[in-house]
């Protein structure tokens, strides 16, 4: 039963990702990506990691994807980019990369398929994660806060408009 659920969720995740990355419209792509992330979150749940599943939904699907949506809305792209995007969907662009990725995938799967081990999952509760997060991993939490600070400062600076002249150029 769980195994079947896992395959279904996996298939959904893969298919949604595939569709998302071949969309022309960014918003459509994002919706598919959210679906994919939800499917992965479900897999986390199946693997006995409910806390991870919740985080995946809240942060990935909830926060990061919404960030994308904001930016796309701010840019108000419309259909300007669509033409270029369609041009590059012809085979000459994707055939070599696809072959490369196929080779890499074969390599990965050859090794992974040889893995023989039975999983005996134990449900890891949020409490246990909390204990180890503020036990051995407490420094990771602190450093992660610095990392977010760096991201914040960098994004704030980069995203800022430079000057009035710049703004006028934008509007014009």
């Amino acid at each position, binding site marked *: 039963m769980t195994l079947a659920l896992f395959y279904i969720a996996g298939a959904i995740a893969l298919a949604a990702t595939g569709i998302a990355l071949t969309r022309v419209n960014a918003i459509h792509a994002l919706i598919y990506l959210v679906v994919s992330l939800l499917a992965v979150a479900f897999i986390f749940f199946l693997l006995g990691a409910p806390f991870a599943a919740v985080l995946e939904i809240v942060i990935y699907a909830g926060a990061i994807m919404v960030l994308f949506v904001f930016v796309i809305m701010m840019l108000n792209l419309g259909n300007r980019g669509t033409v270029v995007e369609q041009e590059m969907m012809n085979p000459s662009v994707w055939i*070599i*990369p696809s072959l*490369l*990725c196929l*080779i*890499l995938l074969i*390599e*990965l799967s*050859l*090794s992974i398929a040889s893995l023989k081990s039975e999983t005996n999952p134990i449900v890891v509760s949020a409490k246990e994660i909390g204990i180890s997060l503020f036990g051995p991993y407490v420094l990771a939490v602190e450093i992660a806060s610095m990392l977010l600070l760096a991201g914040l400062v960098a994004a704030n600076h980069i995203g800022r408009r430079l000057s009035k002249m710049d703004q006028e150029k934008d509007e014009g």
Partner: protein
Amino acid sequence: MENLPLVPLIPFVSAALLIATAGRLPKMVVGLLGAGSIAAAGLLVLNIGIEFLRDPTPMSIHLWTWISINEFKPAFAFYLDGLALVMMSVITGVGFLIHLYSTEFMQDDASFSRYFAYMNLFVSAMLILVLADNLLLMFLGWEGVGICSYLLVGFWYQDPANGAAARKAFIVTRIGDTSMALGLFLLVAELGTLNILEVAEIAKERWEVGATIPTIACALILGGGLGKSAQLPLQTWLPDAMAGPTPCSALIHAATMVTAGVYLVARNHELFMMSPLVMSAISIIGVATLLLAAFTALNQHDLKKILAYSTISQIGYMFLALGVGAYSAAIFHLMTHAFFKALLFLGAGAVIHCLHHEHDIFKMGGLRKKLPVVFWSFLIGSSALAALPFTSGWYSKDEILLATWSVPTLGPWLWAGGIAGAVLTAIYSFRLVFVVFWGEAKTIPDKQPGLRMSAPLIILCVFSIVGGLINMPLEQVFPSQTNAHAAGPVAWITMTIAIVGVLVSYLLYLRQQINVEPILNKPALKKLRYFWYSGWAMDALYDRLLVRPYKLTASLLKTELIDRFYNLIVESSVASHRALSITQNGKLRTYAINLVVGIALLAAFLTGIV
């Protein structure tokens, strides 16, 4: 004693300062820094010398190990013994006088600061050379003085001829240096060390006297000495090196650097004694060089070239002394030669300075009254050079010739060569004095040497006379010589032969009693004189023997296989550069594809799928 490392350091720091300020300092400061640093080093040497004489045990100061690879641990370490002390004193003492002289001689030169930077750097490198306790550090100093010599010969680089002279000096000595480097490699490979004391010790244990390997090693190292000291067959660069400023010729090409070859052999005498063959070669080379250079000096009329050939000739005497095992005599002559030859060069510099840069002695004359200080210095310098009795040169040359006589088999022949050289030396040195200072005045001096030029001349005059009385602390360095004094007549000839030469010179050039013109102008003799004038046509010989065949082969090979091979390297490098540059096309996707290719290949390789 602990401040020994400061001796080379002070001139080095001064040179670094002068280079860093790049001529922005006022000349006054440059002069003070340039001459002052040498004076400071000289005072330190004096201090160290006094201490050393009180307790004359050799000591070495290990500063640090440069690198350590298995057994091979070349160190930055200085070794102080009597020999090093003598050399240091000569370098800093004579060096200081020459620097002082230079402050006046060069004062109108635009590159005043550059000059002192090079000179200080030279002194520093020379001090490292004589203080080094291992051959690698010595080689560093060796190359350092080579560079400084190159820079100073080509000091007035605006004239292409000077540049050519500098290059010639550099390339010819480089041939010797390469040979020396090969010798050092051989020593490291065979003995595993370059420390001078250890080399001597291990060599004695491991090798038999006269075996092949020590002979090859000594011959190769000797090659370096021959190049640096302008001995046959590498002597051709020194006359051209006179293109540099005269005080630098006095310091580098007379007093110190050119005698480095003598120092090299003396310092490693225990190694050289392993090979009697090389020792005989040294003495024969010495005699050949001293005769050849003396004949050439006789026919020159450029004031500085005469002195240059006489330097080659005098170093020939030193090599002769080394070859017969009279090391302390060689070093003794090195020291006295440093005094009187520096004196002569500085005197020549004063003449040239006061005579609108005139070099031709036959355009001078009658300067006896006009430039009295210079005249007296020349007279004293030439007497010492000719080894007139009781001058410093007399003591040292006498010692060399007497030691030569007592050598079995070859001895008398070498002695005869030395005596012939002594006569010639006396003739050409007094020819110089008579032609320049007597007779009618052909060029009128426009100025007089000032105090800063006269004072060094006077001090060097004193040393040139009494320098022979200095007792050098060399007993512990060299094996004691058997002072087998030669029988009466030999000793008398040795001691007085120079007077004959002076007399001949007097008759020929001052009195002109014997009119030799008709004989000299006979075609055969004229050719011979020209042959001598050209330095036994060595340059032409090398041109025919080496340069032209080289150029010929080069031009033949230009289109040939070997060159094509080298061009292929260049072309393939450039072609692969171009090809690789094309891959850097700036497209993110290309880069990403490359990244994936890399991951795929790496994964395939590591997991063994390929």
